[in-house]
């Protein structure tokens, strides 16, 4: 199955137009759910209502076999909704929808851990109504032979904000990202993705922001370190549709390559059919700056310590929007 399609295809020989994944029939997986007050839950059979980054083919497969858990947020919640996935040695999946009603607020923490091998597929739909605020945190700590597909779609209404933090720390093959439509005026997407890739790990990211509402704002930041024989591909799209006047979109990427055997691909697209917008992209890919390295060495740090420090720095910068203490402690524990 092909997923993570690039918004506009380009040279086929570059192998960036999509990703191919293979897995067996998916059985339903029930995450451990800790809901705060103000969040109601129901389980329904419903097709995926919004576009997600993996594409329609995956949605159709999941609809056939998985029910959808719908979490409706009706007020400003002070504690987080926690969804803990501890996948076993099989192919399983889950479909979630989070609907933030007008003026509501919620932080959602999704932990993905697993046994050594297996496959996990999680689809998340986010509907953020007017003036709502949703802070989504996804932490990936899967097994060394585990394949994880995290498929996210979001529809963001007027004056609503979705902050998305994705931290990829362990897993053989990790496919992630998000497809966000900023449909309302002044809708906002703030996306931070961080990674620490080692050995032969693969991260395939597809982050898409579609601007439809006037004065909508998107900011996508992707940063991390690659070592060993790890491989990463980042597809990013900021797409300004006609009518999205006054909108701003920015995407940036910082990839620190720690070993000579890594592969890093980046495809940051800006598509524009509206003239009254500002779109920008910046990327910096390579080794550690010589001056920074010299300074750190002069302070007595060894190679190993410098690598660890830089990895931590990238991850901690990624999680600056995370408020949930349990989530932050887990990230610290994993990165240490």
């Amino acid at each position, binding site marked *: 199955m092909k997923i993570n399609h690039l918004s506009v295809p*380009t040279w086929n020989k570059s192998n960036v137009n999509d990703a191919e994944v293979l897995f067996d029939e998916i059985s339903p997986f029930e995450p451990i759910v800790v809901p705060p007050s103000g969040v109601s839950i129901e389980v329904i059979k419903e097709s995926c209502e919004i576009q997600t980054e993996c594409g329609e083919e995956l949605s159709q497969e999941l609809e056939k076999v998985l029910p959808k858990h719908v979490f409706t947020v009706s007020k400003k919640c002070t504690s987080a909704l926690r969804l803990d996935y501890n996948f076993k040695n099989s192919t399983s999946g889950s479909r979630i929808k989070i609907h933030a009603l007008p003026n509501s607020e919620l932080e959602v923490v999704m932990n993905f851990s697993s046994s050594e091998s297996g496959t996990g597929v999680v689809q998340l739909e986010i509907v953020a109504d007017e003036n709502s605020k949703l802070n989504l945190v996804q932490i990936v700590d899967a097994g060394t032979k585990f394949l994880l597909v995290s498929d996210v779609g979001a529809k963001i209404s007027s004056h609503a904000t979705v902050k998305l933090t994705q931290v990829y720390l362990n897993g053989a093959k990790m496919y992630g990202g998000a497809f966000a439509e900023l449909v309302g005026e002044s809708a906002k997407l703030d996306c931070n993705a961080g990674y620490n890739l080692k050995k032969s790990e693969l991260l395939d990211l597809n982050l898409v922001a579609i601007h439809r509402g006037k004065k909508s704002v998107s900011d996508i930041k992707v940063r991390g370190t690659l070592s060993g024989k790890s491989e990463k591909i980042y597809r990013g799209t900021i797409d300004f549709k006609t009518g999205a006047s006054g909108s701003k979109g920015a995407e940036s990427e910082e990839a620190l390559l720690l070993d000579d055997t890594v592969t890093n691909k980046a495809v940051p*697209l800006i598509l524009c059919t509206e003239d009254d917008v500002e779109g*920008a992209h910046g990327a910096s890919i390579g080794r550690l700056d010589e001056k920074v390295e010299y300074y750190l060495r002069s302070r007595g740090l060894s190679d190993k310590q410098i690598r660890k420090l830089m990895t931590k720095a990238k991850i901690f910068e990624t999680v600056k929007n995370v408020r949930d203490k349990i989530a932050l402690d887990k990230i610290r524990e994993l990165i240490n």
Partner: protein
Amino acid sequence: MKKKTQVSDVDTSRYDFYFDEEPKDMLKSGITPEIIDEISKEKNDPEWMREFRQNALKVYNEMPTADWWPPLDGLDMSEIVTYIRAKVRMKNNWEDVPEDIKNTFERLGIPQAERESLSGVGAQYDSELVYHNMREEARADGVVYMDIEGAMRDKRYEKMIRDYFMKLVPVDDHKFAALHAAVWSGGSFVYVPKGVHVEYPLQSYFRLNAMGAGQFEHTLIIVDEGAYLHFIEGCSAPKYYKASLHAGCVEIYVKKNATMRFSSIENWSKNMYNLNTKRAIVEESGKIEWISGSFGSHTSCLYPMSILNGKGARAEFTSISFAGAGQNLDTGAKIIHAAPDTSSYMNTRSISKSGGINTFRSIVKVTKKARGSKSSVSCESLMLDPASRSNTIPIMDVQTSFADVGHEAKIGRIGDDEIFYLTSRGLSEEEAKALIVRGFCDDVSKELPIEYAMEMNNLISMEMEGSIG
């Protein structure tokens, strides 16, 4: 006196004239083995070239058109005439060129440019070169600038052509490269010997006069060790109601310590499908500089590629494209860092207006062998109205940690703050916009020789302060 301050579409009226073709000069339209054989016969191809063309036709028939290209719906290949017989054999004396062809190039200013600022000129009219000449100084230095078909039949260069022809751009590179290989006609061969610095540029000018025709010239350039060459390519055609096709090919070999600058001012008519292929391979400490101005054509797919194959090799790509009403310009560059300590720089500007579509597409690949390499890409796009479109689609593929790759892109319209500042200094809003657009193009136009920068300014019709009466 009023001042003209609007940004107009590119004015192509200067190029919009033609002379009737005799039907007997044209082969049948379409692409069949028989037509390919007829082209081979017309050209008196050696046997290896005849076989090469037929094999390329098979590849062309089997290959699909790239699915990511802009739509080519208006291009009916069965209607395209791939070869038009020359009225005369190629001349080395301008006075011997037939009057109508001579008039064409004189109206385009080619002979004047040759006299004033060029080392040599080649002029192709439809399928064949009609004129080729070079200054005596360059000839004395051993520089070869001749028609490529003549070089293929010349014992001195035959082996060189066989060794280099379509080796850099393989026949199966893409569908229109295969078509080019099957029906190619005309074009230039340039060889600059070791250590020779060609003082003035060489220029080839391509003019497609016939309606519903294709032009498939092949340019092969070899700049030997330590040499320098500036080569300029200009293209134009009158506008017809039927689609035309340009599927030329440029192959450039830049040897150790050599430098090659390839400037291209493309102003095809708005019914032209410009599906050209350009590629350079650069050896140790060599340098390729691409300067590209894309103004014409209905649809363009053009991505010059630089393969940095020797230690310390460098590539620079500077381009500007202007897409007006009905135009879809899909342009950019490809740079492959395949050796240590190589470096590259891309700097592009695009302007979209009146519903025109500009797409910047690039790839920078740093292979495992390219330790210590650096690359920087900067692309800026300006949209002058909400009917237009602008896209940037860059790829960065880095396979070694000992590399520094940077990329920055911006899309937007002219900023309100900039206009506010300039109007506060006494300029009208229109004058302020015009000034900003001129400044936007400046980085690129300053890279061109002065006469071509002026030509480019004319092409864009940004005569912001010119009188309109």
